[in-house]
């Protein structure tokens, strides 16, 4: 039961000459909620599709509950739920018909949960999918992924089309579901506050690499902004340890650094005769600074 829900080793994906993901290795344990952050084109969707076996890695492998993602047997698939970025519903059908079709593929289906969600999210079971708004379709896609109570939920920007109220309801439901038993959740989003609120661990993808993998507190402790003040008019030729980016202003330099410690600060101040002021950052600021 304690086997990793997802296990990837040396995962690489390239499209022709372009490497989209480089050498990723990670694990998702049961009970963890992973928030995947990255700007457009960072490789989030590609990573989630590799997990599902929808796409083949150029090298390396992904295992879902011990089975290779490309060849997941039925009993493993029963433990996986997925919400795609754009809905993949059968537009000719009604909500109830679509739910019945998908439910028929699973031996167990939580009809009570689905009817509760239909009520709470205002989705009419008799509505024809074709006539529903994008947000309503997204709610239905989420319900379809929840219905068989999967042990691993993979969600690709699930809240992108939802209004703030529906987003809040969805997040509450996700918290409730992830708290049940040992369910693992991997979800990508552009909305940093959602990830901050939900995720027990954060992955930040930058240019196809896992720039950060860890919990939010460690990330906040690790990445900080420095205000370096110096006396002269010209910017000294600094070598800032662990620098991510830096900007020079009049008589000061602002730098974002990783793993800055008091010892490093002391030696830096002595070496360049400067004063350094360290500032903690929130997740959104960290994300913006990483991509500046």
């Amino acid at each position, binding site marked *: 039961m304690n086997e990793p829900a997802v296990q990837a080793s040396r995962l690489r994906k390239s*499209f*022709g*000459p372009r490497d989209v993901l480089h050498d990723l290795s990670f694990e998702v344990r049961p009970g963890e909620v992973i928030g995947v952050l990255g700007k457009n084109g960072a490789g989030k*969707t590609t990573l989630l*599709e590799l997990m*599902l*076996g*929808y*796409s*083949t890695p150029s090298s390396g492998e992904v295992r879902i509950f011990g089975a290779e993602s490309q060849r*997941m047997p*039925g*009993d493993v*698939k*029963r433990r*996986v*739920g*997925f919400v*795609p*970025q*754009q809905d*993949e519903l*059968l*537009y*000719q*059908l009604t909500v109830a*018909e679509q739910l*019945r*079709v*998908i439910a*028929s*593929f*699973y031996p167990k289906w939580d009809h009570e949960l689905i009817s509760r969600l239909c009520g709470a999210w205002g989705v009419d079971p008799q509505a024809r999918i*074709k006539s529903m708004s994008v947000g309503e379709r997204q709610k239905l896609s989420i319900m379809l992924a929840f219905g068989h109570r999967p042990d691993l939920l993979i969600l*690709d920007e699930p809240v992108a089309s939802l209004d703030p109220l529906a987003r809040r309801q969805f997040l509450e439901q996700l918290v409730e579901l992830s708290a049940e038993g040992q369910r693992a959740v991997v979800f990508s989003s552009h909305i940093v506050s959602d990830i901050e609120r939900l995720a027990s661990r954060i992955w930040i993808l930058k240019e196809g690499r896992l720039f950060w993998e860890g919990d939010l507190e460690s990330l906040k402790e690790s990445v900080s902004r420095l205000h370096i003040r110096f006396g002269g008019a010209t910017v000294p030729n600094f070598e800032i340890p662990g620098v991510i980016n830096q900007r020079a202003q009049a008589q000061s330099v602002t730098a974002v650094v990783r793993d800055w410690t008091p010892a490093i600060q002391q030696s830096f101040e002595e070496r360049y005769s400067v004063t350094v002021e360290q500032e903690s950052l929130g997740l959104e600021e960290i994300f913006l600074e990483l991509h500046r």
Partner: protein
Amino acid sequence: MRAVGRLLLTYFTGTTATRWLTITGLLLILASVYVVLYLPQTEHMLALAWPGLIAFFFGSSLMPLTVGRLSQSHSSCVLPGARIKLLASVILTVMLVALPAGLLAPLAFFAGTSGNIDEFLKWTHLFEWSLGIMLIVYTSGCIVAIWLYVFIWFVSSERKLAGYAKGIAVLVVLALISAGESREEAELVESNLKQLAFVLVVFSAGFLNWPRLKRWYAGRQRSQPRAASTSARDFAGSEIDLLLGNSRPWILIAVLLLPLVLTIRMGVGSPGMWLLYLAIASVVAGGNAEKAPARSRALWLRSEGSRGALFDAVERSAWRHNGFVLLALVLFLLGIGAFAGMSPAQMVAGVSLVVLGTVLSTYLGLMLTRGVRVPESVLGIIVMMSLAVVAVMTANDGIRYWIVAAALAALAALAGILRSLARSRWARIDWSSCRRDAQPNMRIG
């Protein structure tokens, strides 16, 4: 098994239209069983069976789109046993829709020869022969159903020229298969079974291995970076024609003429058949206009004219495209008319028919500012049936030409009505109502 059962039920009853078609089809088939078994035998005893079989088949028309959508989406990776269950549902659907024809044929034969079961069974060779008939009709029904589903898939999933072209190619294949020489019963059964086995094995292997094939193909495509397209062809045509997909009539001309040329090779030569084929081709020629409402939004956003002016521009563009296609069809008709021995009067009527077919379908296409709903579907069927009836009437040597002329005049009047209807709809076009919602080929970026 539960999933396969649910899929089958969804194919036949998923929407109100398919539900009614299925029920109507089944009722008509049951009624024709009654007619065959209990009413006096006439040449019209299967009159109810044909519409019943057609309705039952179209009752399951949701199948290709549903299977295509589920098998191409992420669902195929996540749903347990998705591909095998979908494949099973496809095969069972084909077997089910062909079943009524397979059962009705020997019943009709039984009723026609004896009507008394004890007597019928005594004549072993009659019993065996009727079983043979059942096998032939059933296997032929399966083959026809498979090709018609492929046709529906191409036409409904790729609602563009390439899709229609593939659909027509499928119909040509079906026509070529059906036009095979008449053979002995046993030979025909064997040939049908071989065809079925071949199609099912190839389809099943392709369907089950599709993800692998797709990945392999995508890998090959991606490893060959394409040079930036700067050929003159990409900039040909006016902007409006490019936006509406009306810049290359030659493709449609080739698509329409190829099956017609193949038909010459098959030796089909009766004037009636040619007029019917050309009437169908003229409808396809005009069908290109159905994309205009959805595609015209980009034009509206950058133009300053009224919706009426937009309609005029779109109409001119449609005719710049369809005019060439129509010209090609008329030239083909004149050529083939001489070859098939059509009289001058038949030629004149044929040309009028082709012109009217293109005009009617062009305005029917331009009318679709709210997508295809029941009234538009009914109108489309009426137009198609009327053209077919006039084609058959024209080819009939015994008919009086004033009747054909009156029918053509009625069609011309209908074309005028459709144009005004299209124009009035464009005056209040709402682009959110004519957007293309069904996009089965969704690639998540």
